[in-house]
């Protein structure tokens, strides 16, 4: 029982970081205004953050740089598809197709 309770306390503590970070500026409202320059610089946050999430997944294998791996090849194909087509499902089909073909079909990575 006490172990179960401890787990819920742990989960609540981890969860507190969700609201602390996401609410850090939204919840205080007017009282937490950033300088205008910084606010304008933050327009680049989505692109930088998305790339920061994608890059390690496609460039690294087991923590090491790996320029020739199926995930990078799939990411290149997804990028090309996004540039040439407006179909929202095609990137998923093409990307998973290339990844599974290279990793299962050819036994890479």
């Amino acid at each position, binding site marked *: 029982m006490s172990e179960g309770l401890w787990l819920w306390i742990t989960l609540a503590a981890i969860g507190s*970081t969700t609201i602390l970070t996401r*609410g850090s500026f939204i919840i205080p409202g007017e009282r937490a205004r950033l300088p205008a320059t910084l606010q304008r610089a933050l327009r680049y946050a989505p692109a930088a953050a998305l790339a920061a999430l*994608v890059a390690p997944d496609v460039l690294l294998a087991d923590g090491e740089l790996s320029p020739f791996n199926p995930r990078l090849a799939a990411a290149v194909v997804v990028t090309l598809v996004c540039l040439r087509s407006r179909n929202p499902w095609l990137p998923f089909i093409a990307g998973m197709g290339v990844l599974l073909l290279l990793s299962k079909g050819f036994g890479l990575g």
Partner: protein
Amino acid sequence: MFNDSFKRGAAEGFRAFLPLSVGIVPWAVVTGVAMRSIGLSPLEAMGMNAIVYAGTAQLGTLPLIAAGAPLWLLVLTALVLNLRFVIFSAALAPAFAGYTRRRRVFSSYLLVDGVFAVLSERILKSDDPHWRWGCYIAPSAWCWVLWQTFTLVGVLGAGVLPANWSLEFMATIALLVMLVPMSATRPMLVAALVGGLGTVLLRGLPLKLGMIAGIALGIAAGFAAEHWQRGGRRA
């Protein structure tokens, strides 16, 4: 509350986010399976899912929970993995400043990468508070439902679902689908390249701070590129 401009905002937000939200599905299933695999009961797993509601922080802390790591380390790890939301929160705050406190707390809890990435610019540009609220809350609520539903699939299907199909890569594809059109201007492309490569090159930093450092570098580089481009045109 649900007037016409709210509905129009909701429709636009939902339409923009819907195709990308498929990337959440495998990510949610994987998270559900992972929570069961360290020994959480279905109730505990879904409790964690509702309380924490942050895939990266959940997956990042699971091995530590399994290893019986001290509470401060768990919280610190979750904090670092969530740190990028401080940047998103700061960027979105002006759009929410006029809302009630309850609404600000609720929208903070629901803030996710995808909705911020696709819709933050439109939300910040709009002068209509009803439209803004609709445009934010409709895709955010959809994302929550989708996440909870497919995590439950993973939680209940753990052990039955086929592993080894790399389906979690669909989450990466979804992120790329957002990133590519966003990088159409040169400063945005610079921000993305520096943010991505910076994170990879700084991956040795302790506590996974490389990602935060990479994002900060990317923002600075994008902003610098914008000024440099404008200066170049003037000359």
